[in-house]
């Protein structure tokens, strides 16, 4: 029995506004993520998807509970060790004017290199492979800031691949991308999970790609509700309806899409 890449035990997420009680977003969460799985954290805006991700990464403190990476507790892992376990793709903007695409992807090798950040030949090969995998060779020497949002996103994913971590976490990766690119993005992520046996965790409020592509869903509700399972099961047992139907829009199980409510 292989230890899952990620284990979440009795986790409570939230934050501590000063002078007030802690605000709990979700409690008693228990999930696993295994190698080769693509999991989508799905939920409406404000449900706490990004908070969960940040808590898992250790960017934010959990209110309770433990997170384990291949059996090792997050609390005991140093920042440097985490860098070899999880790589990230975030919504943070990078605004530096002179970084090239190649240089951005190359930062993925930093956890493995010397203090000067210079790349060995083996590093260069890994960077080149990541660039090719995402199909961005044509602008690898272009300035990152001149790229379109979709191209930037591909660059950041290539960067995460270059970091050679067993897990990749993505926060709203499809947020600024047009529909065809969304599909292409999901295909890349599925490939990383199924072919390359990485564990992929992404947050999204975009239902349809998640339902289509994910191996598992973690549903987060606005009021702390949580449900996990395979997309098909969650559709059939009405969980999707429970979490996402509202006065204006309902989820149609047969057609697997959201429609205007008839109420």
């Amino acid at each position, binding site marked *: 029995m292989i230890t899952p890449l990620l284990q979440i035990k009795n986790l409570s997420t939230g934050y501590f506004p000063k002078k007030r009680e802690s605000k709990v977003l979700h409690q008693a969460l228990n999930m696993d993520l295994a190698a080769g799985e693509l999991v989508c954290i799905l939920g409406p805006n404000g449900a706490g998807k990004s908070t969960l991700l940040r808590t898992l*990464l250790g*960017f934010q403190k959990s209110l309770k509970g433990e997170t384990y990476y291949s059996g090792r507790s997050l609390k005991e892992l140093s*920042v*440097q*060790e*985490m*860098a*070899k376990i*999880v*790589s*990230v793709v*975030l919504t*943070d*903007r*990078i*605004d*530096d*004017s*002179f*970084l*090239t695409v190649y*240089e*951005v992807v190359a*930062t*993925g090798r*930093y*956890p493995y*290199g*010397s*203090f*000067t*950040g*210079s790349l060995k030949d083996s590093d260069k090969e890994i960077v080149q492979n990541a660039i090719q995998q995402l199909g961005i060779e044509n602008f690898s*020497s*272009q*300035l990152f*800031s001149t790229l379109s949002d979709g191209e930037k996103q591909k660059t950041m994913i290539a960067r995460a691949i270059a*970091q050679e971590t067993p897990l990749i976490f993505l926060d709203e990766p499809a947020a600024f991308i047009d529909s065809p690119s969304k599909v292409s993005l999901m295909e890349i992520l599925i490939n990383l999970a199924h072919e390359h046996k990485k564990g992929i965790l992404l947050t999204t409020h975009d239902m349809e790609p998640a339902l289509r592509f994910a191996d598992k869903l973690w549903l987060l509700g606005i009021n702390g509700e949580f449900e996990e399972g395979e997309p098909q099961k969650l559709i059939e047992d009405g969980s999707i309806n429970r979490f996402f139907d509202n006065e204006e829009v309902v989820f149609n199980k047969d057609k697997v899409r959201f429609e205007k409510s008839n109420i």
Partner: protein
Amino acid sequence: MESKKNTGFWFLVFAVLLAVLFLTNLWYGSVLISWQEVWAALTNSSETAKTAQVIVQEYRLPQAVTALAVGMALGVAGLLLQTLFRNPLAGPSVLGISSGASLGVALVVLLGGAFNLQWPESLKIMGELSVVLMAFAGSLLVLGVILFVSGRIANIVTVLIIGIMIGYAVSAVVGVLQYFSRSTELHAYVIWGLGSFSNTNTDQSTFLLIATLLGILFSLLFMRQLNALLLGDNYARSLGVNTKQIQFILILVAGFLIALATAFTGPIAFVGLAVPHLARSFYRTSNHRILLPAVILMGGVLTLLCNLIAKLPGYDISLPINAVTSIIGAPIVVWVIVKRGRIKMK
């Protein structure tokens, strides 16, 4: 895209320029000294006329070395601060450290006069060790406060703002001291504030150079973290950078370099802010593996150039350094930015 050849070319250009400017600073001055005499003075040949040797060795050499050291120190400090704060307007003045130095000097120069305190004679003299020590102490005090704040507050922008506010507060205190001062002390203080590379003797300039080099060498250990910071705190952290620790270290190193420079020369305007931008525009890169050596060279070039220009009026008149760095520096930076590259940092 500019290639590695371009990088090599500029390094060569600025290295040569640095050497040329250094030697020219030794040669040019209010007293005419020939190149042979300069060379003889440098090699300590006893054939030189005594006066020329003394001028070069005791006056111009320390002056040039001081200018070189301060240029390098402020260039590096400016780069570290601009990357740390992700702000193109960050510079040595931003941490309030030069204000701290001003406070230290004001206490020595102004306070003694204002309240007719009987400082021991040895402490009262402008340009002597006391001023240096008090300036350094003042800087370290402010630096200590900033480091304390940085350790408690995660948001770097907040630290930046606090640094600026401390600068204002300290300047206000100095303003009060100035208000109660006599004109002779006031004048001495103002002169200090205009910056000068000439207030150091041979020992002091040597010390300054060595201490600067040590600080700079230490900063070279963090090239990779500096590059990672360009992506933002979250990405940097995901790459294994301990952001709180690096924040502390960078403020410490930059603060040390600024305190050192300011103690011996007074606050030098503009160099720390401009040199990193110049380096980025010439080398067209953000990679600190190239930028750190680049600002070391270009910082020295800028200050040596300004020192030379300050001496141009000839005879006994030399312009205050801060006037030169600002008047010459500002148009140069604008020209370079407009012609060669954008500054677009978050």
